[in-house]
């Protein structure tokens, strides 16, 4: 959840109004009774920066966060009674930034505990958006295990995609908070947010600069970038084209985000703690604080701690077809076998 809220805070800081951000949070960890420090979600274990704060607008919350609602928001096929704040009101001049995080696997991402969205669903939704000219460009960013599989099925133009880890690879959390016993932020997101802290609304940094800071050693997984659908050179695409509300550039950037349920990971700043050095609020903590914990808890462990395990299937398409046919063959074999046996008995 701090992944999502971190992104939310960043795009808002860069000038995207709340009305253009669609924030989906599957779980209300900040107000969860199991949260030791209610009302707060922190960006890191040092608890310098409360991401929840007092000015946050969650558009889809709890059980509203479903695959269906997500697809409806993207394609615009919402019920007529849905209010403006829950709609994605974009047109052919809008740049859209989609950020997703949660428990994922090869070509899917888990929503809540009972459904999942597949790469085909998102690819089809983007194609429908393209057909209706609902975007100019999309930046798709995903931080899950095996995240890169998720954007492999896209086929609509002008989509730039990046993911935290290759198929077959886990995505690891950045650090763990011992007081609440869970990991607080994922490594990939943490490094992006750190880069974003150095950017303001008028920054001239490009997407290439952002992708250059990806360091597989630091992130503990191999981030991927897919730019074959994207028609501008990355070194001429400003980061603020997607992350910033700069009006001259005609940027209109909704953030769509989802997170499967997680145990509470917020902490309260009101409780004075001896080790809590008050630092500058605006600065994200840097990586040296808990070096020993780094990388020792991964996203799967995170899933385990909440009693939900996301298993990831590793096989590709041919294997999948083979498996389907095997099951048919099995049923057929069973029938034939029963038939032969009865005949043999006579």
């Amino acid at each position, binding site marked *: 959840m701090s992944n999502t809220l971190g992104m939310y805070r960043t795009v808002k800081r860069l*000038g995207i109004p709340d009305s253009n951000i669609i924030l989906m949070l599957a779980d209300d960890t900040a107000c969860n009774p199991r949260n030791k420090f209610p009302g707060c979600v922190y960006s890191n274990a040092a608890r310098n920066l409360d991401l929840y704060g007092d000015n946050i607008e969650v558009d889809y919350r709890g059980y509203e966060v479903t*695959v269906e609602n997500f697809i*409806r928001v993207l*394609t615009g096929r919402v019920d007529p009674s849905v209010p403006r704040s829950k709609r994605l009101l974009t047109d052919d001049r809008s740049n859209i930034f989609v950020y997703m995080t949660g428990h994922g696997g090869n070509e899917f991402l888990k929503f809540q505990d009972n459904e999942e969205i597949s790469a085909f669903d998102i690819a089809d939704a983007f*194609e429908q958006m393209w057909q*209706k000219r609902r975007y100019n460009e999309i930046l798709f960013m995903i931080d899950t295990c095996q995240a890169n599989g998720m954007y492999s099925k896209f086929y609509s133009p002008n989509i730039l995609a990046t993911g935290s880890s290759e198929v077959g690879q886990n995505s690891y959390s950045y650090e763990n908070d011992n007081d609440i016993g869970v990991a607080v932020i994922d490594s990939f997101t943490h490094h992006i947010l750190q880069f974003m802290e150095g950017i303001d609304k008028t920054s001239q940094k490009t997407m290439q600069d952002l992708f250059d800071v990806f360091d597989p050693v630091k992130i503990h997984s191999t981030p991927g970038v897919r730019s074959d659908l994207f028609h501008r050179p990355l070194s001429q695409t400003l980061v603020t084209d997607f992350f910033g509300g700069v009006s001259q550039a005609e940027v209109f950037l909704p953030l769509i985000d989802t997170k499967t349920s997680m145990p509470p990971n917020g902490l309260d700043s009101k409780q004075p703690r001896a080790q809590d050095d008050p630092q500058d609020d605006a600065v994200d903590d840097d990586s040296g604080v808990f070096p020993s914990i780094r990388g020792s808890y991964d996203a799967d462990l995170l899933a385990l701690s909440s009693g939900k395990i996301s298993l990831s299937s590793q096989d590709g398409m041919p294997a999948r077809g083979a498996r389907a046919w095997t099951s048919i063959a099995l*049923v057929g074999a069973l*029938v034939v076998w029963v038939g032969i046996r*009865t005949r043999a008995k006579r």
Partner: protein
Amino acid sequence: MAEADQQQPPIDLSKLFFQSTTTRRRIIASYWIVVILAIPIWWRITSIDRLSLPESKVSALDTRDLRLPLRVGLQSNVPGISSNSIETQLAHRLKRDAESHCVFFESAPVDLNRQSTPGTYDVVIEPGAPNLLLDGRRLSVRSQGETEEQVLDALTNLVLPSSDGMEALRIVKYSPRFRIAFSLLNEDATSGRSILSWDVEAAIKRYLAPALEKLSILHNFTIESQVQYHAPLAFRPHEIQIGEQTAHSLTQEDLTVFVNSAEWTLSSSVSNDPVIHFVLFVPSADDSPLYILDHNGTPSSADAFILPQWGGIVVSNNARPHLKVADLEHTFVTFHNQLLSLLGVPSLPANVDYDYSLPFTDWQLDALVRLRTMQNVENSKETLRSIVALVHQIENMPVGQDVKGDVQGVLDALDLVFAESSSSLMFALRHSSDALTRASRAFFNPGMLALLYFPAEHKYAVYTPLFASVAAPLVATLAREVAAWRKTRREQA
């Protein structure tokens, strides 16, 4: 016990009532009947309702282009300027780029007494001091040495205003309904420099109502207004020195991030209509006077700017507790101009005069109506095409009766547009707007959500545990029964 069992005669299985062949066959048959009867029900509830769309009609639209007539009556009373030659050249110019604007030229007799109708214009060229005057849908050209070329240029510009890329980006997308939100924002009302109230209603009535009235054939406007007493900027304006005075400035970059959307609430969100914002910003005592710097970094006299497709902003260095209608004149005249350019009212050629008591001329209005009609028709066509393409492409996408009805409605509305285009421009616009609304509604129909993608293995995973266990005994008994039946037949024969 064992002995007693042995002494009993073995039970003849074929004598048991439930082992009678007929009963057994009936039981098996009844199972199969249930299965077979259930198949259509299963088929019905698992299949997706995909009604066929009138695809041939949609593809036939590609060949039908909107053609809006431009009836121009030309009369030249100046020797040396021939109305015939202007006519031919105008027709030629319009034909040259017919692709991009869809109007065609029709010659019409000059009739100075007729009622003004959109799309019909009179041009009278008379001798006199050089002057181009628009009056309603009439253009009076006074000429001494004006050449044909100049008249022709002015005329082309009037009926087909050229717009560059920047202008096109500024214009809001067409919508039948708009909300206009006027906000008076005080950066900090406690600092001493503030405007606490304004006569906004009277000002709108006086300065904007005529324009809104004229534009009401295109859009339906809803107006709201508000005053805010604490609307901080997200950045600090730079300090500059003008002579002795310390002033503050906004660079061109500052303007792009001027709107502090995180902290300003600029419009209510009660409806889904697009909003055009107008902001009168009063800087606090610390930040005033506040000037806008031009590209060279020197303070300019401009105090207003447009954010494309968003709205307009005026910075006021003239703070007083209450603004009366007269005080608002400058602000609202600016808002008026900003509104016109945001809505896409084309500007007039520089050398043309008109009655300045009017917000804008009928020539401009007609040009805008033609442009919007053309865009609406294009958009509706494109939406229809993409609906058809998507339904083909995504096999799980349901197509319900209401979608089909809307698609048919779009086709009907477009037919009406094509039919009306030669007679009434306003009706054509209305039907094109209707077509666009319906096309969007059809595309965004909530029922058109494709079922989530289920890979084949999911389907087998669902059906195999259910049916494999049931199917095996069913099939086996049937096979056995058929075998037994054939055996008895063979024995009998």
